[in-house]
């Protein structure tokens, strides 16, 4: 697929996924699939979705994000959404959106700490 500019890196038991700045529907569908396939392939326990590059988070994108979190849960994993920009956080909240069951972290470092701490007890 030409969309294969989505990088998935494994750090210990956790997948680190960088969400591109302006993904269209096809790119997001591809990202979902890649994350879940990598979960299986690398036997990952969790996923960090790095959205620090994302400048626009509309209601469609929010829905896809919370769907992805749900899918990872079904496969037995945990997701942390990391690095939301302040401007995006303000806009998303005023728009009235939430991203479901997702935990959030200031940045990827914190997210990794959070996720490995919570995974120690499993």
């Amino acid at each position: 697929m030409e969309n294969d500019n989505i990088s998935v890196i494994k750090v210990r038991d956790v997948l680190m996924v960088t969400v591109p700045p302006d993904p269209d529907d096809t790119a997001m569908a591809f990202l979902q699939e890649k994350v879940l396939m990598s979960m299986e392939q690398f036997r990952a326990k969790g996923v960090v979705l790095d959205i620090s590059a994302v400048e626009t988070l509309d209601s469609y994108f929010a829905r896809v994000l919370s769907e992805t979190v749900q899918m990872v849960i079904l496969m037995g994993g945990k997701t942390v959404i990391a690095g939301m920009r302040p401007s995006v956080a303000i806009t998303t909240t005023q728009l009235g959106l939430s991203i479901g069951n997702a935990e959030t972290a200031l940045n990827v470092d914190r997210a990794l700490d959070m996720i490995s701490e919570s995974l120690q007890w499993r």
Partner: protein
Amino acid sequence: MDDRQGELSIGRESDVIVVRQTVRKITKLLGMGLTDTTRVVTAASELARNIFLYAESGVMRWNVIDTPSCQGIELVFVDQGPGIPDIGQAMQEGYTTSKGLGMGLPGSRRLVDEMEIVSAVGKGTTVTIKKWNRRS
């Protein structure tokens, strides 16, 4: 291209991305702050997606407003789609006729300074939003 006004056609999902990029370019030109830019770009994204989802195709017209008293951006989303039978209902949070979240219209209203919807069933829908440039 005249950057102060123009028109963009919306007919595919990827046009939503083009709409965002265009609006971002205009707000940059105006020197609008990052948060306000994000607000108006996000609202434009919702309205453009609605055209694609509910009316299949349409256009976005943009206008830079620049008078001695105010400076800002006006975006007009026009389609000849099915129209909205009950605008009050469509503005309610969570109301959707698709698989959406039903937050697009009510949420966009909160992100901009002015919003107006004119719609006629079977004729189409026009949504106009305005965002003023806060000089500070």
